[in-house]
C-alpha cells in the first residue's frame, strides 16, 4: 500500500489556500441530499457537526455521554495557541509552525502543521464571536499567557477552564443546528462498528446505551472525532469513558493506525494513592515556576515526615541535573527524571504495590521569599484542589506529584484532507495522528481540535462528497445486516465468557500496568518484548473469563466497559509493536538504548524520519508496517537541548 499524503506542493505559505481553491464544491441545493455521520462531540466533532450542518448537509452526530457538552475536551485547563501576535512580541504563523514542528521532534508532516498554524488565527475570531469569555485586559483587549516550548506569549485562555469554554462554544453552535434541524443528535449512543460497502465507509452501527438497541446508520461519509487512547494505561487524566473503540473498529476495516507509541506524559499530576485509584488528576504545570522538586537522598528517609529531613539530605535532582532550566525543564524530561528517582527507591508518599511513586514539589522557599499570600494569589485554586483530593495542606506540607498519561499523539493515519486510508472515512482531533509528531506542545490540543472541526473538515468533506452520488443503500443490504449481526455476536460473546470469573476493571488495570511499565515514560527492547508476550495472553484470558453481569437490553455500564477494554487489549499490543520498531528516541518516545551522552532522547533521522502506519492483518499480533517518509523543506531538524 502506498501512503499518499495528497498534500499540495510549492510554497508552504499558500498550500492551503491553493488547495481550497482546487477542491470541488457541492451545489447548495445538493448539500441536503448528502448525509454525514460525525462520531464524537468534543472540539473536533462538535465543531465539525455544527459547521457541516450550517453548510446544509444532513448531519447525524453521536456521543456516548448523556450530552454533547460533556466530551472530554471540557477538561483542558491551560489555553489555546494562536499566532495572532496581539502582544507584538514577534509571533507569526511561521513561528507557530516552526515551534510545533520542533516541539514534535521533527516527526510531523510540514503541510498539515503549517495549515494548523494558519487557521489558528481564525479559531480565536470564531470563538470570540460565539461569546467565549476569553480573559481580557483592562482595556478590553484579549489577554495572553506564555506556555512551554515557545518564546512568545500566544496562549488565549478562560481562567483555568479554557477547554470548557471552547467546548461550550462548539456545543452551543451544535445546539443551534439541532434546533434548526440540520443536525440530529444521538446522545448516550456508542459507535460499535463501521459499515463498509464496496471498500467505502458508508455508516456506523451503534448501541443505544439506555435501551441496548443496536442500529445501523447510513451516510455518504463518516467522520471520527473520538479522541485519544490514553485510557490504555487504565490510569490517566482522561475521562473514564474515553476509549479507542471507534478508531479501532475503523482500523480493523483497513484504516491504518499511525505512531501509536507516541503518548504524552504530564509531569505534574497527583500521585496514585491506592490500588482502588480510578483516575489521575492533573495539576497545572505553572506550579513548577515556584515549587522545587526533590526526593530524599537516602532511601531510609522516604517514609519520614519531610519537615524532619535536613536540607543536606535532600536531592533537588532537577536543579542538580539541569542547572540551566532547573525545575522548568520540558514535560518529558521532568517526567523521566521523576521515574528514575522512584525506580531507585527514593519515591515518597504511600506505597502502592511495592513502590512509592511520588516526588515532592515544595513551596516552602517561595512562601518564605514571597509570603503565603502571594503564593495563594498565584495558585490558590490549585492548592485547594490538591487539599480536597489528598487531605494535605500544601502551604504546610510539600505537595507530592508524579507523572501521568494525558494525551496521545498517535491515531488514525490521515492525508492532508484528514481522510484515512478508508475512502469516505475521516478522522479529526486527537483521534488522528496528524499534527503533533512525537510530542505535543501545551495549548495545542484545543487548537488542533477546533482547526480540524471548524476549518478543515467542512472543506475536505465537501470535496469528497462532490465526487460521489448520494447513497441508495438500505438497511437490508447484506453488508449492513452483516455489520449489525457482527455487533450482536460480539456483545453476546462478551456477556457469555466460558468461565466468567474476573471483572472488566481487573483486566483493564492489568493491561494498564503492563503498558505503563514497558511502554510508558521510557521503553527498552527487552521490556517491550516481554509486554508483547503478555498482552496476547491477557487478551485470551479476557475472552475466556471476563465477567459481565446483567443484560444487553438496558443500561449496562459493565458491558460498555468490556467492549472498550477488548479493543484496548488489541491497541496496547500495537503500541508495543510500534515502540519496538521505532529503534530511536523521539519526543515522548524514549528508548533507553538511544540517548545522548547527556542522557537525553536521541533521534535517528537517517532511518526513522517517517510516520509508522500500521495495517491490521486479521491477527492483532501480526500488524504490517507502512511508512510515510517525512520531508522537511522549511525547517531543518536539529537536536533539542535544555541543559
Amino acid at each position, binding site marked *: 500500500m502506498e501512503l499518499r499524503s495528497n498534500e499540495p506542493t510549492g510554497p508552504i505559505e499558500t498550500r492551503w489556500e491553493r488547495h481550497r481553491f482546487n477542491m470541488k464544491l457541492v451545489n447548495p441545493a445538493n448539500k441536503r441530499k448528502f448525509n454525514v455521520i460525525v462520531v464524537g462531540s468534543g472540539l473536533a466533532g462538535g465543531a465539525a457537526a455544527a459547521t457541516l450542518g450550517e453548510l446544509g448537509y444532513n448531519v447525524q452526530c453521536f456521543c456516548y455521554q448523556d450530552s454533547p457538552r*460533556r466530551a472530554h475536551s471540557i477538561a483542558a485547563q491551560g489555553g489555546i495557541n494562536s499566532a495572532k501576535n496581539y502582544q507584538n512580541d514577534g509571533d507569526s504563523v511561521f513561528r507557530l509552525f516552526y515551534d510545533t514542528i520542533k516541539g514534535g521532534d521533527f516527526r510531523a508532516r510540514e503541510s498539515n502543521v503549517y495549515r494548523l498554524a494558519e487557521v489558528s488565527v481564525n479559531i480565536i475570531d470564531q470563538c*470570540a*464571536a460565539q*461569546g467565549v469569555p476569553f480573559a481580557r485586559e483592562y482595556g478590553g*483587549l484579549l489577554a495572553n499567557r506564555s506556555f512551554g516550548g515557545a518564546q512568545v506569549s500566544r496562549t488565549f485562555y478562560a481562567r483555568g477552564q479554557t477547554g*470548557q469554554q471552547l467546548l461550550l462554544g462548539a456545543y452551543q453552535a451544535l445546539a443551534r443546528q*439541532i434546533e434548526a434541524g440540520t443536525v440530529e443528535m444521538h*446522545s448516550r449512543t456508542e459507535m460499535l462498528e463501521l459499515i463498509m460497502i464496496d471498500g467505502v465507509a458508508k455508516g456506523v452501527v451503534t448501541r443505544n446505551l439506555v435501551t441496548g438497541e443496536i442500529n445501523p446508520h447510513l451516510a455518504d461519509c463518516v467522520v471520527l472525532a473520538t479522541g485519544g487512547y490514553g485510557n490504555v494505561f487504565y490510569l490517566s487524566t482522561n475521562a473514564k469513558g474515553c476509549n479507542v473503540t471507534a478508531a479501532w473498529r475503523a482500523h480493523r476495516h483497513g484504516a491504518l493506525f499511525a505512531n501509536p507509541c507516541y503518548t504524552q506524559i504530564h509531569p505534574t499530576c497527583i500521585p496514585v494513592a491506592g490500588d482502588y485509584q480510578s483516575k489521575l488528576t492533573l495539576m497545572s504545570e505553572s506550579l513548577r515556576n515556584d515549587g522545587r522538586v526533590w526526593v530524599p537522598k537516602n532511601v531510609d528517609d522516604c517514609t519520614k515526615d519531610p519537615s524532619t529531613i535536613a536540607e543536606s539530605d535532600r536531592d533537588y535532582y532537577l536543579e542538580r541535573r539541569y542547572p540551566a532550566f532547573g525545575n522548568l525543564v520540558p514535560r518529558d524530561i521532568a517526567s523521566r527524571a521523576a521515574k528514575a528517582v522512584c525506580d531507585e527507591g527514593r519515591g515518597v508518599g504511600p506505597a502502592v504495590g511495592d513502590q512509592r511513586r511520588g516526588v515532592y514539589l515544595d513551596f516552602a522557599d517561595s512562601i518564605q521569599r514571597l509570603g503565603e499570600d502571594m503564593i495563594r494569589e498565584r495558585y490558590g485554586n490549585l492548592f485547594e484542589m490538591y487539599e480536597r483530593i489528598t487531605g494535605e495542606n500544601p502551604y504546610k506540607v510539600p505537595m507530592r506529584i508524579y507523572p501521568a498519561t494525558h494525551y496521545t499523539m498517535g491515531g488514525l493515519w490521515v492525508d492532508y484532507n484528514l481522510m484515512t486510508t478508508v475512502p469516505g472515512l475521516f478522522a479529526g482531533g486527537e483521534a488522528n495522528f496528524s499534527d503533533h509528531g512525537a510530542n505535543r506542545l501545551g495549548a495545542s490540543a484545543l487548537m488542533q481540535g477546533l482547526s480540524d472541526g471548524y476549518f478543515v473538515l467542512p472543506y475536505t468533506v465537501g470535496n469528497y462528497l462532490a465526487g460521489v452520488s448520494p447513497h441508495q443503500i438500505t438497511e437490508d443490504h447484506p453488508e449492513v445486516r452483516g455489520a449489525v449481526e457482527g455487533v450482536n455476536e460480539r456483545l453476546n460473546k462478551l456477556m457469555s465468557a466460558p468461565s466468567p470469573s474476573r471483572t472488566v476493571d481487573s483486566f483493564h488495570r492489568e493491561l494498564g500496568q503492563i503498558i505503563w511499565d514497558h511502554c510508558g515514560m521510557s521503553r527498552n527492547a527487552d521490556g517491550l518484548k516481554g509486554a508483547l508476550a503478555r498482552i496476547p495472553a491477557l487478551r485470551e484470558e479476557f475472552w475466556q473469563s471476563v465477567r459481565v453481569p446483567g443484560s444487553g437490553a438496558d443500561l449496562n455500564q459493565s458491558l460498555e466497559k468490556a467492549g472498550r477494554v477488548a479493543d484496548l487489549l488489541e491497541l496496547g499490543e500495537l503500541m508495543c509493536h510500534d515502540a519496538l520498531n521505532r529503534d530511536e528516541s523521539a519526543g515522548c518516545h524514549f528508548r533507553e538504548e538511544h540517548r545522548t551522552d547527556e542522557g537525553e532522547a536521541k533521534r535517528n533521522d537517517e532511518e526513522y524520519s517517517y510516520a509508522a502506519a500500521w495495517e491490521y492483518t486479521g491477527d492483532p499480533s501480526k500488524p504490517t508496517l507502512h511508512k510515510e517518509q517525512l520531508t522537511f523543506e522549511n525547517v531543518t531538524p536539529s537536536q533539542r537541548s535544555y541543559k
Partner: protein
Amino acid sequence: MSNLNLTLHVWRQNSPHEKGGFVRYEATDITTHMSFLEMLDVVNERLIESGELPISFDHDCREGICGACGMVINGAPHGPQKATTTCQLHMRQFKDGDEVWIEPWRAGAFPVVKDLVVDRSSFDRIIQSGGHIGARTGSAPDANEILIPKGQCDEAMDAAACIGCGACVAACPNASASLFTAAKVSHLGLMPQGQPERNDRVRNMVSQHDAEGFGSCTNHGECETACPKGISVNFIARMNRDLLKAAITAPNELTERTKP
C-alpha cells in the same frame, strides 16, 4: 489512616417505569483517600464478584468539570462538602460507622433512567431553544475588534462556569432549573456578541424551561448552596430583569422561535 465501615442505602431502580427503592449495602474497609465514586467502584466490584448487578451512576471526567456525575448524598446534592462535585468528594468527609443515603436527582423533568442515572436531556433542549449566538463559522470579525471591559467579561465567565450537572434542580423545592437557565442567559447576555438575540433568547429559553416541567423560582436560594461551581442566584434576578425587558419589547420576527 484508619479505614471506614459504612452502611449505604442506595436507590435502585431498574428502569424509568419500574418502582425503585433503597437497598442496603455494607461498604467495608473503605480508605479515607478514596473519592466517593471510587468507594462506589469498590462496592460495585464486590457486587459483580458476588454475582449481583452493580449500581449504575453517571460519571466521566472525575475532575469536577464535565458535569456528568451527581447524586443526592444524605439529602444534599453532591454531598456535604461545599463547592464540590460528587467525583471530587473524598471519603475523609465521612466517619466510621456513618449511614449514607444515596439518591438520584429527583425532578419530574429528570426522569430516572436506572438507579442513580437520570435523563437530563431537558437541559440540552433549553440550550437548543436559544442558548447560543448565531455566529456562522468563518464569518467572524477579528477577535480584538470587539472590546469587552474586563469586569464585564469576568462576570460573564462567572456565569459560563456552569457545568450543567443539575444539582440546582435537585436542591430546589420547586425543582426549578432557573439557576441553570439564568447562567446561560447571563453569560451570553453580558457579552456584546450576545446582544442582537438577547430578548428572544431569554423568552425562548424561559419558555422551554417551563415546557420541560421545571418549577418556578421562589427565591429559596438552595440552588446556589448546592452549586458545585458557586454560581450566584443574582443571575436569576438578572434573567428575570431581562425577561421583563424582553416582554415589553416587540418580538423580533426573524429570530423569534417558531417551533415549541
